[in-house]
């Protein structure tokens, strides 16, 4: 696992993808197309409700798209695979398993022998700095530690791509910063792709090579912005600050444009600013939408 050659990234090709939940509902997003090269870290930013989470789940094969196609290395994605693993806003650990068992669960599904699972889990725990928590009950861990366990649980599968849906938004600023740094560093070290959905412009700047701005209802990709910054990225670095300001402007121009009845540029952008910085705004306490 520490050998970058063992895992490597993928070509992602999303072509003219549209989606609607049920025939009666309007389109969730429309004609989304983009490519990613192996090892690329991509972020999708956009207003709440423009369809980012849905898009990510369609790409992961957890939900069928209505029109269009997703291919990964020229392979049409129609079902989930442990080669591309999704991480959600909440860690969704299995509370009846300890940390070690949680991390190894995917390998158990794949019927790996016990000793090999053990070795691989140890490596993954080391990667996320949780070696000494292996035997703990997950409910005794902090939110950040739990999200690290979820990360390790994804990493043991040696995925070629990690799909992250606002994975750090429920964490405090310090924990978030260290996880942002670690996830990017691990992904780069392993050479795997990242697709990260976020509300947080800072997160996009710190973690991504490219930012896709999604806007409208139904959502479309309205901007493809290259985040050309050297590693390691520090929030306080003037270059990072400058890039942040630029992306903010792009975002406002694109996503913040008044739509369906909203008016007055000033008010709208102010609202955007709040939205972008308030990364703990999700009301539904970490549960995914479920068709009730």
């Amino acid at each position: 696992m520490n050998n970058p050659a063992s895992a490597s990234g993928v070509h992602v090709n999303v072509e003219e993808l549209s989606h609607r939940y049920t025939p009666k509902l309007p389109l969730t997003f429309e004609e989304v197309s983009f490519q990613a090269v192996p090892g690329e870290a991509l972020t999708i930013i956009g207003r709440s409700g423009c369809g980012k989470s849905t898009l990510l789940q369609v790409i992961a094969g957890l939900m069928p798209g209505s029109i269009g196609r997703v291919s990964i290395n020229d392979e049409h994605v129609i079902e989930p695979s442990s080669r591309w693993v999704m991480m959600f806003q909440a860690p969704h650990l299995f509370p009846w398993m300890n940390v070690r068992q949680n991390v190894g669960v995917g390998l158990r599904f794949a019927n790996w022998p016990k000793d090999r699972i053990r070795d691989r889990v140890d490596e993954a725990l080391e990667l996320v700095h949780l070696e000494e928590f292996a035997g703990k009950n997950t409910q005794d861990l902090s939110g950040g530690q739990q999200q690290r366990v979820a990360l390790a649980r994804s990493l043991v599968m040696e995925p070629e791509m990690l799909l992250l849906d606002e994975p750090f938004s429920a964490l405090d600023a310090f924990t978030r910063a260290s996880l942002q740094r670690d996830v990017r560093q691990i992904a780069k070290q392993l050479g795997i792709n990242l697709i990260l959905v976020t509300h947080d412009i800072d997160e996009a700047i710190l973690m991504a090579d490219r930012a896709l701005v999604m806007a409208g209802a139904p959502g479309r990709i309205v901007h493809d912005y290259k985040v050309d910054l050297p590693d390691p990225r520090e929030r306080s670095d003037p270059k990072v600050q400058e890039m942040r300001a630029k992306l903010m402007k792009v975002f406002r121009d694109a996503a913040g444009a008044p739509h369906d009845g909203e008016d007055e540029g000033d008010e709208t952008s102010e609202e955007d600013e709040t939205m972008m910085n308030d990364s703990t705004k999700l009301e539904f306490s970490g549960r995914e939408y479920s068709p009730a």
Partner: protein
Amino acid sequence: MAEKSQSQVWIRKFGLKLFNWVAGLLILFLLWLLGGYLIYLNPDTTHFSDFGPIPTFQAFPLLWEDGTIPNAIKSSGYRLGIGLLIAICCGIPIGILLGRSRTFRELSNSPFQLLRMISPLSWEPIAVIVFVTWNQAIIFLIAVASVWPVAFATAAGLAKVDPAWFKVARNLGASSWHRLTQIIIPAITFDMLTGIRAALGVAWIVLVPAEFLGVTSGLGYSIADARETLSYDHLTAMVLTIGIIGYILDSSCALAIKRFSWHRGDEA
């Protein structure tokens, strides 16, 4: 130093618990002793004085040695075990259906609520007609009484399952077998065991009166028999046996629940 005082606190807490446990039983015993004594004092009831604790405890070894108690436990335990097993085997699938299928839940709600409210013993005459042996009839009564707690608790457990667990599992390559064994079952074990504990309580209560008729073995039969032969000391000894065994069964269930519970802060 801190560790030592912590273990001292623990010992004190445990000691107090044990003391209260013993004291509670002792109070019950003293009340019983007092009652027995009052019965003895009253000339009208003197011949009932065998209900008191001293004759009862004298009857215990006799009943044990002549095989009355062990045989009764064996027969009753067999009926209880089979009845509960049937209830669990039917109750868990019903609970899973209730939890997973909305149509089934809505369709079955009123019939189940209606059936549930029928006192299990009122099935007895019908059961005796339907089944060939009394044994089968009693097992049926136990199963009918205890299937509902198991089914409803299983459904309640399923309702608490986080749908995102399935998404995560699917993404990590879980087959439907894995989903059942690694997620659904461990997730609902706590509620299932709680349901089984409640079922056991109901079954235990139904068992004794069900054995009053027809059969010639079991705890209920032994009580009816003792009443007919006017051996009141035997009667109370059997009553006490029922209480003790019920207590042991229930406590074992509580222990199992504690062992398998991953819930925080709602241990039984």
